[in-house]
């Protein structure tokens, strides 16, 4: 297995702002890697460094085996980039921009170009200034997807797309993946991330706070359990992986670290389970945890602290 992108300890400051503060990122060849984080957490800066548009103050980055700043031109022939805000020249048509970018990247497949225009329902004869935000975004997407690039760097590429087009986009990314190509996808759309990404990295304030498959990440969060037992449970409160325990006669309600679910269930069955509902963490909870909490504590943990 090889890595398409590996970055470690990236630091980038703009004046007094520290945009990146030791960011690590590893994307394997052939995977679709989700790149998540709140606004201003450094995702775009990272992508710009990977493109060689910015030079990192510290840390190392490797893209397709090359150094992004030094080998920029060579690497650019092997990757395609879609910015989050595609800006077009007001008097060039979408078709012209697609062709221009394709040619500058080293050619694009006319058949695929035709096919993508049709699927994205994009009129290539309109001037750049007349496109809506979603249509501008489509121009960027078609230009990138029509290329043979081994690596796609997509920075919130679907912002402004309608749900139908979002569906087309997901299809296209699956095809790219089936071709064995690699995608780094920065996105806020959790459904999109869940549908497409093999692994994700979550960044906060310029640092990677979590990285792994969605299943792995789910294991790091808690599942809520609501059970009615035959008799009062013993020793649940002494388990350090059980949180927010509420006991009401034989009814218990608590949260458990998802990785320890098995052990806690054994405890419950010892007490005799009459009924049980368990709620796995939603993706939203998973991300919100990293988005809003400075110390990456669970919201529940804060409640605990407040109650004490």
């Amino acid at each position, binding site marked *: 297995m090889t890595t398409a992108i590996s970055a470690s300890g990236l630091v980038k400051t703009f004046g007094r702002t520290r945009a990146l503060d030791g960011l690590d990122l590893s994307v394997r060849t052939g995977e679709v890697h989700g790149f998540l984080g709140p606004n201003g957490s450094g995702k775009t800066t990272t992508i710009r460094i990977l493109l060689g*548009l910015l030079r990192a103050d510290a840390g190392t980055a490797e893209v397709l085996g090359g150094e992004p700043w030094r080998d920029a031109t060579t690497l*650019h*022939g092997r990757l395609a980039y879609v910015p989050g805000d595609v800006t077009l020249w007001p008097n*060039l048509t979408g*078709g012209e921009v697609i*062709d221009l970018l394709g*040619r500058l990247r080293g050619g694009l497949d006319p058949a695929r170009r035709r096919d993508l225009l049709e699927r994205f329902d994009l009129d290539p004869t309109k001037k750049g*200034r007349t496109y809506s935000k979603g249509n501008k975004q489509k121009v960027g997407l078609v230009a990138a997807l029509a290329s043979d690039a081994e690596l796609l760097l997509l920075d919130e590429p679907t912002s402004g797309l309608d749900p139908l087009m979002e569906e087309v986009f997901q299809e296209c990314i699956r095809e790219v993946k089936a071709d064995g190509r690699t995608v780094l996808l920065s996105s806020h759309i959790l459904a999109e991330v869940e549908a497409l990404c093999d692994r994700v990295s979550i960044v906060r304030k310029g640092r990677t706070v979590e990285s792994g498959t969605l299943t792995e990440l789910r294991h790091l969060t808690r599942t809520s359990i609501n059970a009615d037992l035959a008799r009062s449970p013993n020793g649940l409160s002494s388990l350090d992986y059980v949180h927010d325990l509420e006991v009401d006669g034989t009814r218990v309600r608590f949260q458990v670290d998802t990785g320890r679910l098995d052990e806690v269930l054994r405890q419950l069955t010892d007490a005799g389970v009459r009924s049980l509902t368990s709620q796995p963490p939603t993706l939203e909870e998973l991300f919100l945890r990293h988005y809003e909490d400075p110390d990456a504590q669970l919201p529940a943990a804060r409640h605990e602290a407040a109650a004490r």
Partner: protein
Amino acid sequence: MSAIANSGKLVRLALRRDRIVLPAWLVVFVLFAAVNAAAVADLYPSVASRVQAAGASNSTPSLVMLYGWIYDPTAIGAIAILKLGGPYAALVGVLAIILTNRHTRSEEEAGRLELIGSTVVGRHSALAATMFTMVGAGVVLGLATAAALAAAGLPVAGSVAFGAAWTGLVLVFSAVTAFIAQLAQSSRTATGLSVLALGVAFVLRAVGDVTGHDRHPTFLTWLSPIGWAQQVRPYAGDRWWVLLITLGFSVLLYAAAYVLASRRDLGAGILPDRPGRATASKALRSPVGLAWRLQRNALYGWAGGFLLMGLVFGSAASGFGELLNSPSAKQLITALGGEKGVTEAFMAAVFGIVAVIASAYGISAALHLRGEESELRAEPLLATRAGRVRWAWSHTFVALAGTTVLLLVNGIGAGITYAAHTGDGADFGRLIVAALVQLPAVWVLTGFVVALFGLLPRLTVLGWVVLAALVALSEVGPLVKLDKTVLDVSPFAHIPKLPGGDVTVAPLAILVGVAAVLVAAGLVGFRRRDIAP
């Protein structure tokens, strides 16, 4: 008045954005006025000398075309404002156009107007705020200019009349731009059309003046806002009522702009958009191809203007032969910077002016680099194999080649009409050479902008500041008898005065070398720095 709610806040926003550019322009213009007035007063102390100078100027068609008539030959003020009322009046118009467009169409194009339009501001607040800002700028310019002229010892009434005439120019051309901004689909088109209108105004005044009898211009002059400004006749009767024409016309155009603005959507023009090509042409396959595509329409427009300028100046110079006997005409023209024959001195001076205008083109063409970068359009290109140096070279190349084309067509235009008059085919070639010899100095300024772009990208606007400073230096410097070493700072000072002067290759080669070093520094600097929106 809800349609213009909160305009006051937008005026403050506009002033905040222009806090450097606007005062700088104002200072430059007021300085020009003051120094011109003072120098002319020194030059013609006696009434007899004034009458002689004014007579020479009034009987020289090319000067009448360039500057207009001197309406009172005995009044020192009327002579002092000769340049200020002609070419400088056009520059005042340029200022009004640039600033007005900056706050209307280019704001709209950048989408910022949309953001502001969604807040608690009226539908027409942005337009109204621009108008208030420009009226304010015009009044300040007029008052400061009047004060400067009066301080130089000219009569107060005439000084105020002249200041008011400049205020009127700001109003008119601001109104013209605001009107055109509603029609055009893009900011560049709006600027281009507005400058075209200014050019037409200048030519109408020039032709109206020169085809009239002594000091009695034909109706053509009365069709031109620049003509109106001159017809106020400061220091020569102070005809205040003419200002009413200016005011009325401005109000009318602004009103029309409001009407158009209410009939169109934000971002759209009145002129419709046609569908374009579905695929790119073969030429659009490299950064240079793109730069050419983005800049060619502007270059066509500029080249047309330069050709026209050349034709007009060439024919104007042809009328010079009859005036060789007048010593004061010679004195006046020699003061313009020539060396040998009066005609050739005139042409050399004209090519000096043409070189400055060509430099303005070169600067604006090279500034595309910064514009593309800060509007984030460069980013997708720089993420391809195009490479930074190749991309940066593309607009640099268009700027360098474009200035070459402009001077070439200008020389051809002047050569055609001049050689047709003299009947000497060799004059055709001599004028082309005289135009092209300006190139090294023009390229130095282009190179300066490229160097700024590569090394100090946030300060690229200094390109304009330096051009303005060099113009001020070459205009004002000799009048206040600045030391030659100071004057020699300007690249234009090292250009041989052609036709007629001697050609020395060394300074030209050095200028080309300086330009090359500046360009190289810019390209290397850009390769080494971060992309900075």
